[in-house]
């Protein structure tokens, strides 16, 4: 039995309505102290709303926000033990970098010497040593985000909220900053709560990820859990490149479920779902776990489907093969590109797509 880990952020039945529009619908969430937690989801899905409610910039319509066990739902942002990094334009343009970083400390009326020392130390920690006297507009995008980090971290608070902090950076810079964020969090040891719509970013930094869609918490878990074993159909459709097949339960025997997906019947592990014949289900398989079979079907193989080869898409690292099934559904098979291209099937040729038992996953919603 684990020892109870301390909870840094807890959200209990949290709802936020704008008139008739529901931005958050009864969300329950726990973030443990010292973890790097990511809120992932499509734009407009509510993850930013959730973050801002935790930060105090929005007032909940119902439910509570607890920070370190204390109900802070009525407190404004300046009274909460959180600090925040924004997407962009959040540095004070009329102050120097040092002025920006030291602002919170000057509000706390710390002596000037202490402010200077702490500011200097923090700038060095985020890799901006010597840039204290510059103005924000003289810095690059990446540097500006580091100033924001410095400004938030220097306050020595336990919870750091990050609202799409890397969204305005270009792809290469984003990758580098991701790792830096991760290392920074490991070094400082406080709780990071990070919002993004970018999967790769989420997987790079997160200890745990929560998927927020349409104002609801769809699923949460570690990066590996979400990627390899998604429970909900939506998670499978959003994270990674999965093939989704909708179907009906043909029969259940023990731990195996036979599902009629329209283009054939396949076998899937039941997991801990309880199902009956006729139930509507969905099956997902990671595109990198599919193979184009070389030989004919062996016996009553419930781990393959037949279709017509459609096209090849070369993407550098991977090559995608698209196959159209008998009922019109499409399967994507992803392989690491071979140096010398094998004979790819001709478009329209009949191919069999197969997978190992256990690769397919079952979802009821």
């Amino acid at each position, binding site marked *: 039995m684990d020892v109870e880990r301390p909870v840094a952020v807890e959200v209990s039945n949290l709802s936020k309505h704008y008139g008739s529009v529901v931005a958050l619908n009864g969300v329950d969430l726990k973030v443990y102290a010292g973890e790097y937690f990511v809120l992932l989801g499509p734009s407009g899905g509510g993850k930013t709303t959730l973050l801002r409610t935790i*930060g*105090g*910039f929005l007032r909940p319509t119902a439910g509570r926000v607890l920070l370190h066990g204390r109900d802070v739902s009525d407190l*404004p*942002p*300046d009274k909460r033990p*959180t*600090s*925040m990094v*924004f*997407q*962009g*334009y*959040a*540095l*004070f*343009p*009329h102050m120097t970098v040092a002025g920006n970083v030291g*602002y*919170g400390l000057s*509000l*706390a009326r710390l002596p000037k010497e202490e402010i200077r020392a702490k500011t200097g130390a923090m700038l060095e920690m985020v890799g901006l040593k010597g840039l204290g006297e510059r103005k924000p*507009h*003289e*810095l*690059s*995008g*990446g*540097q500006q985000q580091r100033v*924001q980090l410095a*400004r*938030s971290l220097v*306050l020595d608070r336990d919870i750091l*909220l990050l609202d799409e902090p890397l969204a305005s950076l270009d792809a290469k*810079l984003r990758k*580098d900053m991701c790792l830096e964020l991760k290392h920074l969090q490991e070094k400082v040891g406080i709780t990071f709560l990070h919002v993004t719509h970018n999967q790769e970013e989420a997987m790079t930094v997160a200890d745990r990820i929560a998927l927020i869609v349409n104002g609801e918490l769809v699923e949460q878990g570690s990066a590996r859990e979400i990627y390899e074993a998604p429970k909900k159909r939506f998670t499978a459709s959003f994270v990674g490149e999965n093939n989704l097949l909708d179907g009906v339960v043909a029969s259940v025997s023990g731990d195996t479920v036979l599902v009629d997906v329209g283009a054939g019947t396949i076998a899937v592990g039941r997991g801990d779902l309880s199902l009956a014949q006729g139930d509507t289900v969905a099956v997902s398989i990671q595109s990198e776990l599919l193979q184009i079979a070389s030989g004919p079907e062996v016996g009553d193989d419930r781990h393959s489907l037949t279709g017509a080869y459609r096209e090849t898409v070369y993407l550098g690292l991977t090559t995608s093969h698209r196959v159209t099934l008998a009922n019109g559904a499409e399967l994507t098979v992803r392989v690491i590109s071979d140096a010398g291209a094998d004979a790819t099937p001709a478009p329209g040729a009949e191919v069999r797509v197969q997978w190992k038992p256990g690769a397919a996953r079952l979802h009821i919603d």
Partner: protein
Amino acid sequence: MQDEYGNKWAYRLKWAYLLLIVFTLMSPVFYVMYISFNENGFGAAEYVFTLEWYAVIFTDRLMMNALSWTLALASATTAITVPLALLAAKFYKATSRKVLTVFLLLSPLFVASDILGSALLVYFKNLNRAFGALGDMLGVGWFSGWFDLGFTTALIGLVIYTLPYAFIVILITMGRYREQQTEAARACGASGWRAFWDIEFPQIRAGVFSAGAFCVILSFNEYTRTSLLKGGFDTFTTVLVSQMLNEGMSEQSYAMSSLVSFIAIAVIGAIILYTLLKSEALAREARAKAQPLMAE
């Protein structure tokens, strides 16, 4: 973005027309200024340049007295209107009933000065009576004469007059301000007022001062509402008008009018110039932001 294939001469013609209209609108004022420098006053055959009428202004007791009242009114109006306009702009940004709010705030523009002045005059008289009756009932003399026609009532009329203008100027200035900065300041621990004063105000300062200058000039120039509501004392505009209507414009009136107009034009010209220079600096900054240093 200019029309590369456009007709250059059509462009120049239209510019000329624009400047002609501006000049025509200003021409009576220029003419008055022209007269004010004439030793022989208006209509005289000979034109002798002199500054003596401007000197006479400062010895004209009536004029000086009126000027001081006007200055007091203008300062008081600005001191009240600008904060109110700031509050109103913040209110407008935050409220969900935007149409109603802006309608209320801008409607003084659509009510003619005489109409508003008359209505307020009757309103104040009635308020005085009501408060007086209330005072009698309670046996206190405290309420009497709050709204006697005088400085306060003129002030109220001027605040109503200038508020829409200040509101628009401040709102437009605030349009360039990013709310995230206030939020970032809050996240650093600043209260609402601190965040405004430390972060937002320095960035909208120019707009606030422009709104203030605007208020001063508008109050200085206002006639109808002031004359109806001011009670006993004289202001710059009422002295001018009573002179104009009775004796015709005296030479120092021409000088006075020219002086005030000149100052007002100079102030606005300075503001326009300042924003011109500022926008050059801002454009440089914006270019720097758009192409950040490649060295990471």
